[in-house]
């Protein structure tokens, strides 16, 4: 019976395996901080994956669209009511992730009679003034991974999610070796696309520790751009409005589209 402890552990294990299997095919999402703010980037085929949550917070997600939608609405509701009752300055990603979303995800995941959320999310928050940007990866079981800021560890200036653990760490490895902190949007887009390609190439296998070779990345890049659609948005520091989110379109993406041909 499921009330017995070891059965519960087994049930959780099965559930984890099932969800990981469902998420494995998800298109990676790369977020990176560049000179003027934060870029969120993915290639998608059918539906929107990158969303505005609040003035300085954006979200990207892979998983079941129904679950993503419920979590997205919950995040917007929490942020909006906080922003209304207190002030926009009081809305913080740290509190949103730690106090609101993570406990709800954990509860849904561990109550084995109910349905878990089939979703993996990456949140980005544009720091105010000199404050560091925050990237938070939030998983279906409520576990949280941030871009650092702990003792002895500086802030990483990127955050990624992908279908598998291996592919995620390969993308992180790739981005650690890249220099984009002071680059313009054009360069940031190119790095983000390469990070996406690395994630996509490494999603299939768990074994290969080496990053894909540059020429392999380049050829895969051409192939993918020919069939998929770029989806990207930025949180811009230069915005003279409180709202910093802007979805990128035509002109901004022209440099990548040119590389296609």
């Amino acid at each position, binding site marked *: 019976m499921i009330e017995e402890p070891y059965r519960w552990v087994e049930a959780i294990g099965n559930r984890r395996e099932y969800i990981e299997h469902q998420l494995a095919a998800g298109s990676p999402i790369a977020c990176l901080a560049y000179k003027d703010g934060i870029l969120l980037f993915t290639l998608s085929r059918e539906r929107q994956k990158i969303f505005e949550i609040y003035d300085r917070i954006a979200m990207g997600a892979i998983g079941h669209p129904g679950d993503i939608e419920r979590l997205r609405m919950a995040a*917007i509701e929490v942020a*909006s009511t906080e922003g209304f009752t207190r002030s926009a300055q009081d809305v913080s990603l740290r509190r949103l992730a730690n106090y609101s979303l993570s*406990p709800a995800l954990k509860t849904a995941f561990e109550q084995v009679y109910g349905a878990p959320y089939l979703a993996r999310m990456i949140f980005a928050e544009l720091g105010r003034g000199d404050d560091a940007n925050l990237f938070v990866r939030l998983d279906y079981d409520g576990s949280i991974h941030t871009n650092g800021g702990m003792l002895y560890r500086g802030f990483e200036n990127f955050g990624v999610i992908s279908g598998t653990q291996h592919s995620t760490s390969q993308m992180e490895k790739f981005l650690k070796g890249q220099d984009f902190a002071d680059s313009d949007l054009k360069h940031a887009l190119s790095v983000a696309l390469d990070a996406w390609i690395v994630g996509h190439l490494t999603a299939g296998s768990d074994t290969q520790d080496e990053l894909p070779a540059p020429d392999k990345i380049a050829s895969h890049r051409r192939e993918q751009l020919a069939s998929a659609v770029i989806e990207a948005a930025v949180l811009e520091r230069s915005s003279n409005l409180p709202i910093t989110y802007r979805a990128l379109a035509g002109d901004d993406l022209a440099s990548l589209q040119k590389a296609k041909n």
Partner: protein
Amino acid sequence: MEVAPPLFSPAAEDFSSLLRRQGLYPAAPQIHGGPQANLPHTEATTILAFKFEDGVLVAGDRRATAGNVVVYDRADKVLEIDRHSLMAIAGVPATAWEMARVLEHSFQFYRRSQLQEMSLDGKVRALSKLLRDNFGFVMQGVGIVVPIFATYDAAGDSARLYFYDAMGAQFEAADYAATGSGSPSVRSVLYYENTWGKKALRKMTQSEAVITALRALDTAAEADTATGGVDRRGKSYPIIKIVSKSGITTLPEKTLAAIYKTKIK
């Protein structure tokens, strides 16, 4: 945190009903019998708005009064709601500012949750609904608000101007609108300018429009104690904001000071 049940209708949850569900928005008192107090007929202030060449100009004085007492001479009665919308208020500031806040958050909440901008008609109606919800307070003798709403319609590529009554009826103004205790004189000035002046309001350039607006406000302040004039020593000038295709601009104090010096007195 409670994750909301699946929503099948986009109308299922607007921002004010979300606030109400969480107990964060006061419900208007029920109206029993007749009015509880003498309803105020004037809202002590002057707000005006008219269309000119580039868009809509909205201007307001800065005085806040309580009965015969001047409470504050730097009140901002022209409030930015979003990139292209302004709400200007005559009435009780507490209610009006709260309304502006709800409105601002409603539009943003709609855009974020529905992944599309609220239509112009939707925005105009949203303010109307807030006014209706507030009518219980008005009947109690507190919380009357009579706003003007100015916006630029990107789809139709034109400036739009609306004024409301306290119950929430909305009227679209062809050329100009005014509200508050100083509005009768302002309306006369604008009618005169528009009909017999050198130029119709709509044909005015920005600088002509600004001068007309400041002169009209000055005329209102002449006869109405609740409308603040200009205090040059205290550097308190009326607020003028312009809604055009490119967004909202606020006229800096320096510009206003220069215009006052040369064109008003």
